């Protein structure tokens, strides 16, 4: 007979709202406590001079019983008449957030326990927000201590309305809200003792109705390589499938290297080799060819391979007493993969009381924030929203776990599709030299790369600069969206990949102008550091000059000459830089012109001076 997997359920909620007591009493009501346990609890409670304390069932540490507070998570099996559960009792206290998150991260569903007489404190909201961030969708609310207001309907209804409204702001709709009393054992197993006004389910009935965890087998294949074994003559790749399915004969691609190989055998002991393995299974893969694969590489199929990028956004929870600041170097662990990352920017902090994003320079322990992380090289990532098992990570600083988070790389292009600069071509030697061109024109060729938000002033500056340079005897030309998008890049749209390709072609075209001896000015938002770095690499060293046209989002949005920001805010334009698509500020631009502080004429003067200093021979 096959036994269904128990549903993993975490108990969450504010300290002192009675999570452990509720679970202890529930175990008693379901007749799951060992013989003599109730008597033992009575004795422990008497020794401490308190009424019978059901939480002592689970609070295993002496200190937990002495302080009547749960310090660390524990897990117990709970068997109701029709279902089995693994219940994780997690501490509610703010100081113990890391233990709560650790417990909750293993769960598929949550039971939020609230005191009927207390308000929805910040800690309750924080827990609910974290549950959502951790990907827990099924949430049940138990309104506890109903004995205190004498099982009054009004008290229950007021509390239920309040919590429903608070959860709605987070985007959670509870599956049920159940009034209970752990002390009296009311409405736990049966509705019996409840007054007539209550017609909903008992807690056990509500638990049994929770949806089962959705399997990851239907998602695309991901197998991070954990180890490589030698088994007789064969090399065996060991790894667990985080999602999907793998069969003998499948062609695998390993990221980030892009190497490929076919599954020749899936070994097993004892018993014969397997034909296929699926999500949750530990595979022992033999490939059809010798391949350099190491721990941390991710195997997938060619279709639906993970995104390759060095930069991505993430929503993180921070646990360290040392606040997080931009520029901080950390180690990110995704399963067996570890990558050095830098916090490129703190995008905003989430205020759990109001749930509004707010600007923040630092992130303190217990806070939740959206950040931009940059790895030192390309890594394979998945968006948590689509691929939960491979879209989440832990942040470490040396030997300390300082946080964790979930990946949202949707605003960044996939580098998997990027063509390499043609390796097999031998460039022809021009008979006209760079020096000859410079002496003919009176200046060296260069690319003046303007980057900044939409409406920061790039095009206006570019056109004014082109006029002034031309009048001053320069050979010069502007590349902007109008003359490039209509011809050279007419086949490109506005997805992250197409925007990346757009900038790649502009970079290459600008490089040709510079090589021809022109001062080529480009005016593109070019939001990604990586794209600008690649454009720089296409040009001879010292001839690429990155200019940050600086104006913040508020200023650009106030200008909004083409009404684009308004349309983006209204949801009409998707993926608009600064609104729902990222802009990475240049870290070390060759020049900054601040269009909030100075007028166009002053900025152009500054640019002219800059070009003359860098290009005049």
């Amino acid at each position, binding site marked *: 007979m096959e*036994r269904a997997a128990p549903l993993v359920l975490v108990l969450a909620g504010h300290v002192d709202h009675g999570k452990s007591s509720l679970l202890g009493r529930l175990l008693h009501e379901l007749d799951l406590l060992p*013989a003599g346990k109730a008597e033992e609890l009575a004795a422990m409670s008497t020794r401490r001079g308190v009424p019978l304390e059901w939480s002592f069932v689970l609070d295993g540490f002496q200190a937990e019983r002495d302080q009547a507070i749960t310090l660390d998570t524990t897990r117990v099996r709970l068997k109701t008449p029709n279902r089995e559960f693994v219940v994780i009792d997690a501490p509610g206290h703010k100081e113990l957030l890391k233990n709560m998150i650790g417990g909750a991260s293993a769960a598929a569903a949550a039971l939020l326990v609230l005191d009927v007489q207390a308000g929805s404190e910040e800690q309750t909201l924080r827990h609910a927000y974290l549950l959502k961030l951790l990907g827990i969708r099924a949430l049940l609310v138990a309104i506890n201590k109903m004995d205190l207001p004498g099982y009054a309907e009004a008290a229950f209804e007021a509390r239920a309305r309040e919590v429903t409204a608070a959860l709605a702001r987070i985007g959670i709709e509870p599956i049920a809200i159940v009034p209970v009393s752990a002390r009296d054992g009311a409405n736990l197993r049966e509705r019996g003792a409840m007054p007539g006004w209550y017609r909903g389910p008992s807690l056990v009935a509500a638990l049994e109705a929770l949806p089962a965890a959705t399997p990851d087998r239907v998602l695309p294949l991901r197998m991070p390589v954990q180890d490589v074994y030698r088994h007789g003559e064969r090399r065996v790749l060991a790894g667990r499938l985080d999602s999907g399915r793998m069969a003998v004969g499948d062609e695998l691609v390993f990221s980030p290297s892009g190497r490929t190989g076919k599954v020749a055998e899936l*070994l097993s*002991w004892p018993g014969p080799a397997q034909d296929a393995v699926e999500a949750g299974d*530990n595979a022992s893969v033999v490939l059809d060819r010798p391949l350099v694969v190491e*721990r941390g590489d991710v195997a997938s199929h060619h279709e639906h391979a993970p995104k390759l990028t060095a930069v991505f956004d993430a929503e993180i929870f921070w646990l360290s007493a040392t606040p997080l600041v931009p520029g901080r170097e950390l180690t990110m662990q995704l399963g067996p993969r570890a990558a050095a990352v830098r916090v490129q920017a703190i995008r905003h902090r989430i205020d759990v009381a109001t749930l509004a994003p707010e600007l923040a320079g630092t992130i303190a322990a217990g806070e939740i924030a959206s950040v931009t992380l940059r790895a030192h090289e390309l890594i394979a990532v998945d968006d948590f929203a689509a691929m939960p098992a491979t879209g989440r990570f832990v942040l470490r600083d040396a030997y300390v776990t300082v946080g964790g988070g979930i990946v949202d790389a949707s605003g960044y292009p996939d580098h998997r599709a990027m063509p390499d600069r043609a390796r097999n071509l031998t460039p022809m030697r021009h008979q006209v030299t760079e020096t000859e061109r410079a002496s003919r024109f009176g200046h060296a060729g260069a690319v003046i790369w303007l980057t900044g938000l939409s409406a920061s002033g790039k095009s206006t500056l570019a056109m004014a600069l082109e006029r002034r340079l031309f009048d001053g005897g320069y050979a010069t030309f502007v590349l902007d969206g109008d003359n490039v998008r209509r011809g050279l890049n007419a086949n490109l749209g506005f997805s992250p990949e197409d925007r990346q390709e757009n900038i790649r072609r502009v970079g290459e075209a600008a490089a040709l102008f510079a090589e021809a001896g022109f001062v080529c000015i480009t005016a593109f938002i070019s939001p990604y550091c990586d794209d600008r770095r690649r454009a720089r690499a296409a040009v001879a060293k010292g001839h690429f000059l990155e200019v940050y046209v600086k104006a913040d989002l508020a200023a650009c949005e106030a200008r909004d000459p083409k009404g684009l920001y308004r349309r983006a805010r209204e949801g009409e334009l998707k993926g608009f830089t600064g609104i729902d698509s990222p802009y990475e500020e240049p870290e070390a631009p060759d020049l900054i012109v601040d269009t909030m502080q100075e007028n166009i004429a002053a900025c152009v003067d500054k640019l002219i001076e800059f070009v003359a200093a860098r290009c005049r021979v």
Partner: protein
Amino acid sequence: MPDYLHALEQQSIHVIREAHARLKPLAMLWSLGKDSNTMLWLVRKAFLGRVPFPVMLLDTGNEFPEVYEFRDRLLAEWGLDYVNAACPPIEATDATLPPAARAAARKTLGLKAIIAERGFRGILLGIRRDEQLIRGKERVFSPRRPDGSWDFRNQPAEFWDHYQTDFPADVHVRVHPLLAWTELDIWRYVERERIPVCELYFARGGKRYRSLGESDITFPIESDAATIPEIIAELERTRQSERAGRAMDHEREDTFERLRAAGYM
């Protein structure tokens, strides 16, 4: 649809492979009970039949004779790299502990001595959360200070299964692949996989051992369960705790916590 035992098995194999990949040198504690035999079976599954590290018995000399015979049989059949770690005498243990706990504490000292001698960075142990409340608080990868003690008030956060395996050089890590299993899961798995277990678990003359410890501090329970299906049926009915026959658990409220904080398994 894979069943629940399969899910538990795969989760444990993942942990064992992670320990082998990250903690070197690694060893496994083999107490010869049903749990550590299950763990040894999972190790063989993880490494396609091999056991690529030593298996150690913390030997007080007080195991039941049937346990030693069982060990000798498996050593011959499975070709294991076996380490017999002798435990110091009871006089070397903390004199403020109750008597049975002192007998158990000999194992703590034996473990510390062998870790010091062989420099192990990781030790696989077959403890389970449902055995004992304090064990319920454990992490899968649980770091120990150089003196072997457990800083249970400040355990590292363990999220999803991105286990932390990097620690300072003087820390060793206790790895617990069976933490999520229950006693019933173990017996159902032993039955399904036909894993060998010591004969003392099966009833003779109305008594059997439910949990195996030192012969001087472990007592049998009343039982007629003489086969694995009978044991499973008994466990589905019983409300006695598994460790009811382990004297050290019942001396004082905090004994087990003190033992574990000092480095007991």
